[in-house]
């Protein structure tokens, strides 16, 4: 399987914040979710990849080519959605399009028109009058209308209601049906990913915590609940994180089998991505 994006050794200091040796790769034909709490470094990573902020060190390769050397060629194949629609609010959608479109050599006007129609957007409407959901859709239209092979999105779903988020996920799945397409998007709403993601990358405090297949992740980790009297230091070490009350404990672990043999009365459940994320960043 080819990698559409390879980030290696990325470092960036930004005020008091730092990205520390960020490495990851995005496989082709996959939706990769980039998760982490606010301030973990998601936006800075994405901006560094796109060259919006100069990086201190590291390389970014897209489609096998170096981003620094082939920047325009690569950007021509990437569709971007920045959070809350990065637009000149006083323009109409049609005017905004007329500024963005000529930058792309593969701009497809028919695709643009049919997308606008499908999403119920009126090109003559002023951007400042659009709702959050409409803005996100318009961002998507711009990103989808130039035959991009990779979509990179920064928090596209933040502030949207569940119905629109669901529509958004379906649009992504539709996009993925064509061969050779990939999506990378950051979010702190991990439930978005339960349904659509193939890969999950977790970043915390400027560092990559893990990079895993979503299903493998959900198969490996279990929520284990049981009797706190049965917990000993040895068992405790098998947990990623654990919460205890007088009546029970709830923990997240990839050693469910060992714990089962150590404790008599336990329940195991399948976790959501959020449980795993919190297990990694909040448990210690």
């Amino acid at each position, binding site marked *: 399987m080819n990698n559409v994006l390879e980030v290696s050794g990325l470092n960036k200091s*930004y005020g008091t914040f730092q990205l520390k040796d960020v490495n990851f790769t995005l496989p082709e034909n996959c939706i990769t979710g980039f998760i982490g709490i606010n301030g973990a470094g998601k936006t800075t990573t994405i*901006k560094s990849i*796109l*060259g*919006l*902020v*100069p990086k201190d060190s590291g390389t970014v390769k897209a489609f096998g080519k170096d981003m620094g050397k082939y*920047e*325009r*060629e690569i*950007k*021509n194949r*990437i569709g*971007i959605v*920045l959070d*809350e629609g*990065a*637009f*000149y*609010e*006083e*323009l109409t959608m049609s*005017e905004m399009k*007329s*500024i*963005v479109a*000529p*930058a*792309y*050599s593969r701009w497809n006007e028919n695709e643009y028109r049919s997308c606008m129609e499908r999403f119920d957007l009126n090109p003559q409407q002023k951007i400042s009058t659009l709702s959050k959901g409409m803005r996100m859709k318009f961002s998507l239209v711009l990103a989808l209308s130039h035959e991009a092979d990779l979509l990179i999105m920064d928090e596209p779903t933040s502030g949207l209601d569940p119905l629109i988020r669901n529509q958004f996920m379906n649009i992504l799945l539709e996009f993925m049906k064509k061969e050779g397409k990939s999506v990378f998007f950051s979010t702190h709403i991990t439930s978005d990913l339960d349904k659509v993601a193939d890969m999950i990358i977790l970043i915390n405090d400027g560092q990559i915590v893990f990079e895993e297949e979503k299903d493998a992740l959900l198969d490996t980790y279990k929520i284990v609940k049981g009797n706190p009297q049965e917990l000993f230091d040895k068992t405790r070490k098998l947990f990623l994180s654990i919460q205890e009350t007088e009546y029970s404990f709830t923990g997240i672990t990839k050693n469910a089998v060992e714990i089962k043999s150590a404790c008599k009365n336990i329940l195991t459940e399948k976790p959501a991505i959020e449980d795993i994320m919190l297990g990694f960043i909040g448990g210690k």
Partner: protein
Amino acid sequence: MFNLVKKDFLLVKKYLALTVVLAFGIPLFVAWQAPGMMGFAVFLITVIFTVYIPLQSVSLAEAKYPKATALLCTAPYRRSAVVKARYVFFLIIFIFCCLAYAILSLLAPQMEMLSTMDVVITFLIFSIVFGIYIPLQYKFGFEKTKYLLMVLLFATSFLMPSIVKMFAHTNINLDIFTGLPLPVRYAALITVILIVISISLTASIKTFQAKAL
């Protein structure tokens, strides 16, 4: 790049009408209020004030929506093209002012016609003023530099005519220059203009390219 120039026009579309009014209005107003004033001075004031409006509004729009600029820079636009477009935008407004003045002086006989030299010298002053201001604005942002521009503009528009007059009266230093044949004078002026613009453009591009968006 044409589309990026168009972007600047779209951003100031609300003020374009005002720009047109100013380009025609200021010369008429000055000619009516101060009939004796030199055509050159009138033109200089017109240019400076006419450009002020779109410059402020385009900068304000960019300052208000920094993410939109970021979006353009994620597209295959070169950052340098975004900057160059801004310079072209001002150039177009300058040319428009020239045309407006030319039309007026054809229609209104009391208005002094501009010589080519007047236009070139105005363009030189225009290049120096904006050539200093634009890179500073890229460096420090709109908020910090908006008063600087006002100071620069008022200083230019009020002081320049007096300075020019002063030079005209005293005749120092200028002898060497005015003694030169006309084509050489033009060539010298245009060279200076080109040098000013290219230094300014390079500085702006360097600053903008290093900027975190």
